[in-house]
C-alpha cells in the first residue's frame, strides 16, 4: 500500500465516521494543515453525500432558529476577543466581562437586538481613561465613547453613525452592582452629544468593570426603561500607546 493509499483510507474512514475517537480528532486537526488530506476528505464527502437522500427531513421546533440567532448575537458581541487588534490579558478580562453582559429576555427577543462594547485601554499604571468603540456591520466604527475616570467625564463621538429621523440613540451601562438589567446613561441629543457628567453618580471602580451599549430607540429614548430597539455591535480597541487607537 502506498502512502497515498493510506491517506485515502484514512480520509474515507474519517468521512464514514468509523475512525476511533482519538484518530478522528487527529485527522480533524491534521486536515487543516495538510491540503492533500483535506482534498481526499472533500472527495469522500462528495462520494458519500448522496446517501443522505435516504434521510427523512424533520421539521425543527419553531424556536430553534431564535435560539441559534440569540447565540449568534452573543457571539457577535463577544467577537472582540478574536479581534486581532486586541491583545493579551486585557482581552481575556474583557471577554469575561462581555460574557457577563446579558440583556433582559424581553430585549433578547427584540429583532435585531444587541450591542455591546466596553472599555479597552489598560496601561501599566493605574488606568484613568477608557475607550469603547461601537460598530455597525462589522466594518465601520459607529461611535467612540471615552470615559475619563478621574473626573468621571464622558464623551461620545459619532464616527459613522448619523442621526435617524424620529429615532434616538440611547447609551446604557451594565454592571454587577447595578443588577441584572442595563441601566440608561442617557439619550443622545440630536447633535449626537450626551451630558458629560452622566456617569458622575457611578463609582470609578464600578465604571472600570462595567459594560456599555448603544441602542436605537423611539425619539426621546426607550419607553420601557430597557433597550428595545436594534442595537449596534461593539468591538474593542485598545488605545494603549496610541498605536491601534490612531487607526480610528
Amino acid at each position: 500500500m502506498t502512502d497515498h493509499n493510506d491517506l485515502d483510507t484514512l480520509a474515507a474512514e474519517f468521512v464514514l465516521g468509523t475512525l476511533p475517537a482519538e484518530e478522528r480528532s487527529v485527522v480533524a486537526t491534521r486536515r487543516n494543515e495538510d491540503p492533500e488530506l483535506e482534498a481526499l476528505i472533500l472527495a469522500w464527502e462528495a462520494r458519500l453525500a448522496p446517501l443522505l437522500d435516504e434521510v427523512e427531513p424533520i421539521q425543527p421546533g419553531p424556536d430553534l432558529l431564535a435560539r441559534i440567532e440569540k447565540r449568534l448575537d452573543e457571539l457577535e458581541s463577544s467577537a472582540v476577543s478574536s479581534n486581532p487588534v486586541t491583545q493579551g490579558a486585557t482581552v481575556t478580562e474583557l471577554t469575561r466581562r462581555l460574557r457577563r453582559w446579558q440583556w433582559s429576555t424581553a430585549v433578547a427577543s427584540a429583532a435585531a437586538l444587541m450591542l455591546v462594547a466596553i472599555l479597552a485601554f489598560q496601561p501599566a499604571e493605574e488606568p484613568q481613561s477608557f475607550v469603547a468603540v461601537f460598530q455597525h456591520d462589522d466594518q465601520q466604527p459607529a461611535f467612540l465613547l471615552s470615559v475619563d475616570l478621574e473626573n468621571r467625564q464622558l464623551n461620545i463621538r459619532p464616527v459613522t453613525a448619523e442621526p435617524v429621523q424620529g429615532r434616538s440613540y440611547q447609551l446604557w451601562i451594565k454592571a454587577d452592582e447595578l443588577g441584572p438589567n442595563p441601566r440608561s446613561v442617557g439619550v443622545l441629543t440630536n447633535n449626537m452629544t450626551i451630558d458629560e457628567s452622566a456617569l458622575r453618580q457611578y463609582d470609578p471602580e464600578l465604571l472600570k468593570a462595567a459594560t456599555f451599549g448603544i441602542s436605537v430607540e423611539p425619539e426621546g429614548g426607550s419607553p420601557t426603561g430597557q433597550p428595545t430597539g436594534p442595537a449596534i455591535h461593539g468591538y474593542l480597541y485598545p488605545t494603549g500607546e496610541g498605536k491601534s487607537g490612531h487607526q480610528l
Partner: protein
Amino acid sequence: MESESPKPFEAQRTPSDHPEGALLLTSKDIGKLIAKVAQRDRAAFARLYEATAPKLLGTVLRILRDRAWADDVIQDVYIKIWQKATQFDAGRASAIAWMASIARNSAIDELRKHPARRTVSDDDIEQIASVQPTAQAQLEGQQAVASLNRCLDELEKDRQDMVRLAYLNGWSRDQLAAHFDQPVNTVKTWLYRALKQLKRCLAP
C-alpha cells in the same frame, strides 16, 4: 425552479404558509446563500436555515436518536456554518455536501464523546433494511444518488449495511463488530474493501 442538480434540501413548508412558495433550493442556490452568510448577512442566514434545517436535523437525529440532543447539536452546527461560511469554496465542494459534513461531523463527535447517551435500537437495522430509492430521487432522476446506490448494490449485503449503518446512523467499528459478530479487525478490513470498491465503481 432549476432542475439540473439534486435537491436533497427542501424546507417542509407548503406554498400556503410561505408567500414566496415552497423553498426548493438547488445546491447552487444554497451556495449563494452561504456566500451572503460569509458577508454576515443575517437575513440570508435565516433563509439558509429555513431551507436546510429539516434535512440537517433529520441527519443529526438519525445519528443521535434523541431530539433534545439533536437540537443542541443543530445549534452548534449553524453557529459553525456562520463562522466557517468564509471558508466555503463552491469550486471545491457542493454546498449541500459541505453543510451535511459539518452536521455529520458534529453529531458523530458528540456521539463518540457520550456513547452511552444513545439508545441502541433495532430501528437502525429496520431503517437500512427498508431502503428504497426515494420517490423524489426517482422523479428527479438524481444522478449522483442513482450512481451511489448502483455501486452500493454491487457490494455484498453485509458490507452495504455496514456502510449505511456507519454513515447514516453513526455506528462505530465496535458496534458494527458486535452486530455482525466479527472481530473489529475484520470489520476494519471489510470497510476498507467496501470503500475501495465504491471508489472504483464511482470513478468517472
